[in-house]
């Protein structure tokens, strides 16, 4: 198994690149017109997990993007997935 130093030599530039890309994405969304949505909120909720002192940050980030509901609909309203849980739509009156 490689040491911390060896992993840093191997992967630091890639991790730095990914972090800057994320920062630029946040700036881009802020700068552009219109409203953001639940996906941007989900991203902001997940980001603090990166700084948590825990050994399972990847799992925790994945859990934060996950649907934690327990109800089972009879049929699907649509087929795809968006990467973050859709907010509950209140029933129409």
């Amino acid at each position, binding site marked *: *198994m490689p040491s911390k130093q060896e992993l840093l030599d191997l992967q630091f530039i890639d991790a730095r690149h990914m972090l800057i890309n994320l920062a630029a994405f946040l700036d881009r969304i802020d700068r552009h017109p219109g409203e953001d949505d639940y996906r941007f909120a989900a991203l902001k909720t997940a980001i603090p997990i990166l700084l948590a002192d825990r050994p399972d940050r990847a799992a925790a980030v994945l859990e934060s993007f996950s649907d*934690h509901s327990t109800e*089972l609909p009879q049929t699907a309203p649509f087929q795809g997935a968006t990467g973050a849980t859709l907010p509950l739509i209140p029933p129409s009156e």
Partner: protein
Amino acid sequence: MKYIEPHAHMVSRTTDDYEKLALAGCEALCEPAFWAGFDRSSADGFYDYFRQLTEYEPKRAAKYGIKHYSWLCINPKEADDPGFAREVMSLIPQFIDCPTVLGIGEIGLNKNTRNELAIFEEHVQLALDHDLPVLIHTPHLEDKLKGTRLILDSLASFSALDRGKVIIDHVEEHTIARVLDAGYWAGMTLYPESKCTPNRAIDMLEIYGTERLWMNSACDWGHSDPLAVPRCALEMKRRKHTAEQIDRIVYQNPRRFLSQSPKFVR
């Protein structure tokens, strides 16, 4: 390096991809039945698809010295219409005895509905009735955690099921422990954007060991890489995994699981 690609949707790939796989050392690959990127308009579309999987693709692969095997089912995305799904499932028995059909898959859930779950359980029963291995798809992105829990709860109700003959695919960091702890095999899918990157898959190998794990590219019509497994093997080498460790995950493990079907030629 020789390896087995245990999950690839070659109907969506070019013949050039078969050549690339062969050049990279692929000796055998498995193609589970799946969604074509659009919903088929009739069960006849699946009949043709099952013929493609069992007749045409094995010949196309053989031209490059690759053994091609398949798994049959109606995929979860098209299983939300139970009437249609049962019509497609009624076609499966006439293909089950084909010499390259290994089992039932990739069944599972997509949006975690009651309809999908009912068809999933009927597929599991079909596999049990024919004593076949099962390959299970877990849902995408935000639906994966809930879907994995539902699948594990459902499988627990099949007392006759040999958990060693079931692989639950597309695990990630938040689902892998549940799958392995329950006694099933787990598959890690290497995708450029969703599912696992090579480095994340290697992290999971380092944390959970290699006893009941395999890696696959699941290359299909979407953003995917048919050479994802050999690329991950290279990354393992860069991270000081030995040749034996690499061989175990890319060749020995898929061979061990797949050999539970007598049709898989070792």
